[in-house]
Structure formats: C-alpha cells, structure tokens
C-alpha cells in the first residue's frame, strides 16, 4: 500500500530483517475475515485489493487499472491488471476477482460482510479475463470502499478451496502482496519473507519492484510498557501503539523517533441511549456533555497527546464538519442549570442528583477484550468529572464480551462507547446512526436522518456526499446531542533511527505495510 511520509533520512537499503512489536495479535490471517483495525498493517503485506487510497481521500487503482460507474450508479466496471500472480503460482484475473466476492455467499463464511458491505450487491459478471462488472440493486458508493478494504482483498481462489483452516488463514492462503507469510507462532510472532516476484506496486508507493526487507517479524507485545521497553533496550527496531505517558521518553532519546497518524472512520465517542430515562430528555444529554471538560480529561489521561474530537466524523475525513468545533461542552454551570430544568434537583447522601428519589445514574458497559487506548481509564476520568461538576453517577463496568453484548441487546445501558476505523466515514455513520444500523445504540429513529444517510451512500459525487454528511453531523451533534465525541483515535509509531520508510496508510491513518520499510546498516 502507498504510504504517507517517511521518518528516517537517507537512502533506502535493500535486504536485512527487522522486528516490529505490535499491540494486537490478529485472530485471523484471512483478509476476508478481517475485523481488527490494528491488524490492518499485516494484511497488506500478503494481500492486495482492487483499489487503494491516495492522500486526498480518493481512490487509485491497485490490482485494477481503472473503473467506470454507470450513470444510474448501479454498475461498476473494473479493468484488471494482467501481470499479477498469486504466490501459489496461479494468475490473477477476472474469474479470481469474482470468486473472491462469491466466497461471501458461502454460509457461515462471513455473515457480517454479506449483510452489511455487500447488502446492495446483486451479482458479479466476468466479461473477459481483464474485465469484471459489479451489478448493484441500488446505488452504493461504499462498494468502492469495500473493494479497497482488507475484506475486499484478493485471495487465490485455489487456496480458498484448499486451505486447511480457511477462516483462520495462514501460510497456505495465497495473496499477491510483496511479502509471503512464512510462519505464525500463536501468542508470539508472525514472520513474513520477501516475495521476490512482486512487481505491481500501486502508483502512490514509495518505490517499485520487490520489498526492501528480506524478512520482517512482527512480535505481539500486548503491554504498552513492554513494547516501549523492548524498543528502548534494542530488542525490537520499531513499535506501534506508544502510550501517551511514554511519548516523552521516546522523543527525548536521539536514537528514536516518533510519529503519529490520525485514524479514519468515526471518532471515539459516547453515544447516549435515547430509548429510556434519563437520556430520553435532550436536556440531560446536553447536560452530560456540558459536565465533561473533555480537554482536561484528555490532558490528564493522554498527557496532551490526544486530539480532541468535536464530531462523530474523524477530523481527517473529507466529510468532517469543522464548524462544530467549540460549540458545546465544558460548561458546568450550564450542565447544572439544564439538569435543574429537567427535574433532577435533589441530591442524595453521596452528592448525586436525584429525581423522585431515583439517582441520576447512567451506565457504560465496556467489553474487556475490546478495551484499548486506556479507554477504561478515560471512562474513570469522565466518571470523576461528571460526578464532581454535575452530580451525575456514571457507572462504568468492564465485563466480558458475552455480558456486554447481552447488556446492549437488553437495553441495559445508557452510554455506549465506540469508534470505527472504516476508511470511508459514511460506512461508520450508516452502522451507528441509521435507524436500521447494525450498531445503532442510540435508539434514535428519525426518517430525516435516515434519508440523509441514504443520500450520502448513494451519491457518487463527493461534494453532495459531503453536504449530506455535514447535515447528519449537525443533526446528531448540535440539534439532538446524541453523541459526546471525545477524541480522534490515532496510531503512533516509534522507531530507531536505523529504520526508514515507515509511515501511515493514507485515509485509514493506521501504520502502513512493510513494503517500503528498510533498515540501514
């Protein structure tokens, strides 16, 4: 994949092997099963998609040479590269592209993709080995986003049939990428070796031809402090996921450098459940937002390294509405006034507001396996703030996945926290805000909002999409106060000065693949 920025100076060197400590161990190496934004950097080592992104948020061809959209927005015709081979020796052509899409109609393969991303896809036709056509039931620009995403990556049809553990992936699942998965030791590391035959890098890439490195090892080190320790003691050369508290340690070290990239998708936000009290009352939702001094909280928890979010759409997205900035929040007096108006006037022994003898309690349920970025600590900080400034009792529970899902299904929550890493923010908004969205946890139903979201998905014109989504933001953030955006998720990379060619994927904002990485000697 193309990369953005290069940290180390000097000329790229070929050869050598490198160890990279990453936070997350992928639960699968099959790109079609991809579900962890943190594993994205591994996907592009071995697999590639039809499209990729440029730095402006547009699409550029990768395994395709170009595409056309019909006037009604329902037919997408792709021209494919003809010089590409999978690592198992089979050639990449239109039949393969079709086979990859058809794979999703196998029951149980990935019901989620079938139900969400491919919802509007009718069928795929092969015209000739270099031409493939996607027919949609209704216009859906997000098809392009899918075709540039890991789930749209191209896997050798032969290995799709023959792989031992298809859903888990592994060395026997062949792709077209610049590296080959050499071996994977669960809980420990995954090793890739150079694909010497690779010669089809996309336009925006840092170089052409095979990758610089002979070999790259990703070690899974879950603990942030352990990753930093491994880097500072020279046991790995590059890490991602640098905790805010350790950034100073790295910037102070001349042998190391640090860089941060903001992720695409939706900002990390609290969504208010409007289906029952107290957040069925707009005033209480507004009051909660006013009760939190987000800047102070972020400074405390992330030591100033976090970028505050003002909208549910991430600040790097082309759809971001800058006018929302500084329009709300951090006004304790206003929060108290709003709560008084809403009838939460009394206080109980612990200092919490009550109404009719009921405490103003709101529950946030976090699923332990998905807590990252110190979001549990952040929740505690918010908890302390809303208690101190407005007498709101924010009840935070970190529970196992089953319990969390059940609490959500039963409506036993008032606050839902989430961030999505979709490259196209529209995909995230569909899921989160549409009344039929698969993770709509606000319970907010508004035909006007649904209408706007559908416009944004159907319009192939970027400007029209932007207008629609800005209206969405205004409606949900300003008018309805459905959301308390907190921060824009970011990735950090820290590396020794001997490592060059590292950076972030455009649009997605996550660490890029190892294609351009090199190690000076």
């Amino acid at each position, binding site marked *: 994949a193309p990369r953005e920025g290069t940290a180390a100076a000097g000329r790229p060197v070929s050869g050598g092997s490198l160890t990279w400590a990453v936070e997350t161990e992928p639960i699968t190496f099959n790109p079609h099963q991809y579900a962890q934004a943190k594993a994205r950097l591994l996907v592009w080592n071995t697999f590639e998609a039809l499209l990729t992104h440029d730095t402006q948020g547009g699409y550029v061809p990768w395994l395709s040479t170009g595409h056309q959209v019909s006037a009604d927005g329902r037919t997408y015709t792709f021209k494919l590269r003809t010089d590409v081979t999978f690592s198992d020796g089979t050639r990449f052509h239109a039949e393969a592209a079709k086979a990859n899409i058809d794979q999703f109609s196998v029951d149980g393969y990935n019901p989620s993709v079938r139900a969400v991303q491919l919802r509007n896809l009718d069928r795929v036709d092969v015209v000739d080995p270099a031409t493939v056509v996607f027919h949609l039931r209704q216009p859906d620009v997000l098809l392009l986003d899918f075709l540039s995403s890991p789930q749209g990556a191209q896997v050798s049809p032969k290995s799709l049939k023959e792989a031992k553990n298809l859903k888990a992936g592994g060395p026997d699942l062949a792709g077209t990428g610049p590296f080959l998965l050499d071996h994977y030791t669960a809980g420990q590391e995954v090793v890739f070796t150079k694909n010497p035959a690779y010669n089809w890098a996309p336009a925006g890439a840092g170089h052409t031809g095979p990758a610089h490195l002979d070999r790259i090892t990703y070690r899974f080190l879950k*603990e*942030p*402090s352990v990753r*930093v*320790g491994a880097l500072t003691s020279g046991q790995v050369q590059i890490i991602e996921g640098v*905790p805010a*508290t*350790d950034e100073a*340690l790295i910037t102070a070290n001349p042998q190391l450098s640090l860089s941060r990239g903001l992720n695409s998708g939706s900002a990390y936000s609290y969504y208010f459940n409007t289906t029952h009290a107290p957040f069925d009352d707009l005033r209480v939702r507004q009051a909660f937002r006013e009760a939190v001094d987000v800047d*102070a*909280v972020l*400074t*405390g*928890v992330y*030591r100033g390294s976090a970028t505050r979010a003002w909208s549910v759409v991430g600040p790097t997205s082309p759809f971001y509405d800058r006018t929302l900035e500084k329009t709300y929040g951090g006004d304790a007096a206003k929060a108290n006034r709003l709560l008084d108006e809403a009838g939460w006037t009394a206080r109980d022994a612990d200092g919490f507001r009550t109404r009719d003898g009921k405490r103003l309690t709101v529950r946030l349920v976090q699923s*332990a396996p998905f807590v990252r970025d*110190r979001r*549990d*600590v952040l*929740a*505690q*900080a918010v*908890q*302390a*703030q809303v*208690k*101190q400034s407005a007498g709101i009792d924010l009840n*935070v*529970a*970190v*529970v*196992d996945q089953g*319990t969390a899902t059940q609490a959500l299904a039963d409506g036993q929550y008032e606050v839902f926290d989430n961030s999505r890493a979709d490259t196209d923010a529209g995909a995230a908004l569909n899921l989160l805000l549409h009344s039929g969205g698969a993770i709509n946890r606000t319970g907010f139903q508004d035909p006007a909002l649904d209408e706007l979201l559908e416009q944004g998905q159907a319009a192939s014109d970027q400007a029209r999409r932007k207008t629609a989504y800005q209206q969405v933001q205004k409606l949900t953030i300003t008018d309805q106060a459905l959301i308390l955006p907190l921060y824009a998720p970011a990735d950090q990379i820290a590396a020794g000065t001997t490592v060059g060619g590292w950076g972030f994927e455009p649009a997605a904002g996550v660490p890029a693949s190892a294609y351009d990485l090199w190690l000076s000697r």
Partner: protein
Amino acid sequence: MTLALPRPVARRFTLRRPRPGLTAAGLVLLVTLAAAAWPSLFAGDPLAADPLRVLEAPSAAHWFGTDQLGRDVFDRVVHGARHSLSIGVAATVIAVGAGILLGVVAGLVHRVADEALSRGFDALAAFPLVLLALLFIAIAGTGTTSLIVAIGIATTPHHARVVRAQTLVVRQAPYVTHAVAFGASRPRLVLRHVLPNVLGPIPVLAMIGLGEAVLIAAGLSFLGLGPQPPSPEWGAMLSEGRGYLHIAWWASLLPGAAVTATVISLTVIGRHVQHRFEGRPS
C-alpha cells in the same frame, strides 16, 4: 514384670519464632484493621481525581504520590484495606463455612458418600485455583461478588479436607466411644463432642486462609477479573498502575507492598497461634 508402652524420648521442640517479627506483624495487622474499619479517619477521598496532577511522585502533599488519574495513592491504599480485606474475609467465610459443612458431612457419612465427596475435594483441590476462579468468573461475570464467591469456592476443598480429616480423627477418638457408654445419641455425639473438637483449629486455619484469599484476590484483580474501577482495591490498583511502573513506581509498588505486608502479618500470626496450639499435647 511390667511392661510399658514407649513414650517419645523427647518432645519435639517448638522453634522459637523471632519475637520482633511477631510484634511487627501484630502492628501491621492492627494498622490494616484500623484502616479497614475507619478509612476516612486516616485518608481523604480515594476517588477524588485531579487531571492536572497525574503520576506525581510521593511528596508531603501526597505521601504515596498520585496515580494516572491524579488520585492520591495513599488515600486509595488506605481505603483499599477495606475493599481487599472484606473480599478476603467474605471469601474465607464462604470457604470455611462450606468447608466445615462438607468436611463434617464427609467425615460422618457412609463410606461410599465420603469417598465420592473426598475424591471431589481432591480433584478440586488439585485443580489450578486460578483456573477454577477464572471459570467461575466466566460464568458469573466479573465483579466483586463473583470474585468473592470464586475465591470462596476455589479454596473450599482445602478447608473441607482439613475438616474431614479432623472429623475422622475425632469421630474415632476414644472419648467419643466413652460418650456412647453414657448412652449419648448420635446427634448429641456430633453436637457435643465431634463438632466442638473439629472446630478448634478452624480460626487459625481461617486466618492463614485469609492471607491466601487476599493474595488470590490480588491476582485475579490483576487479570481484570476483580472489583470494577474506580474501586481502590489493592490488586486492581496494582494492575492499573503497572503500565506506569517505569515512570511512576509508586502507583503499583505501594499497593503491592500493602498486600505483602498484610499477608505476611496474617501468616506470621496465624502460624504462631498454630504452633502454640500444637505445642501443647492435645
């Protein structure tokens, strides 16, 4: 013409335990108990966060420094005494209670039932404690209550085994036979002779068991299976603070020291009482 049965040549010496250690243990325990009983007397609000004063080193204002949310670690450690000890005590009460019940039943019932019960204890006792607690928490969900019950269940077999052995000894003791000679009925035997003698060593066991429970609780909290934040439980503090060890040792090492000191003092005192208990012929 008389023959006497052998008597031990020399009574086993009870080792003299270092007195200063015992005194220190007593003091630590006293301080911990005081902290658990009246935490607010010694420390301020353990939940008061100050986002501008995070991870500050120990100073006159903050004896134990501050944590990642700018809360006073000393306040939290003091309040933690109540949380950690009450988890330990509650778990021990469950374990000892269930242990007595099961142990006495196993010791008194028919051979086959006893065999089944004690095989069960054996299997459970050899099962990794952490795994047992983990399983329970997997079923009941995370939280203080399930942590307590998990530790209680996990340590029950140990107590049940001790009680069962003791019951067997007592049940076959000649003085129980003698009670039969006075026409004592079975319930009377159990209530007047067996139970009181079985329960004798229990307080000591419970004390040592309490130390163990506090330790396990810390371990499970560390894995994130204990009380929910912001509860100032020691294990949870340790777990939360460990990410900052290299820049703020106080946030994790000081709560850790509290755990160690408490467990040591419980063990030292428990063992001392136990030795006293065994020291005299009984």
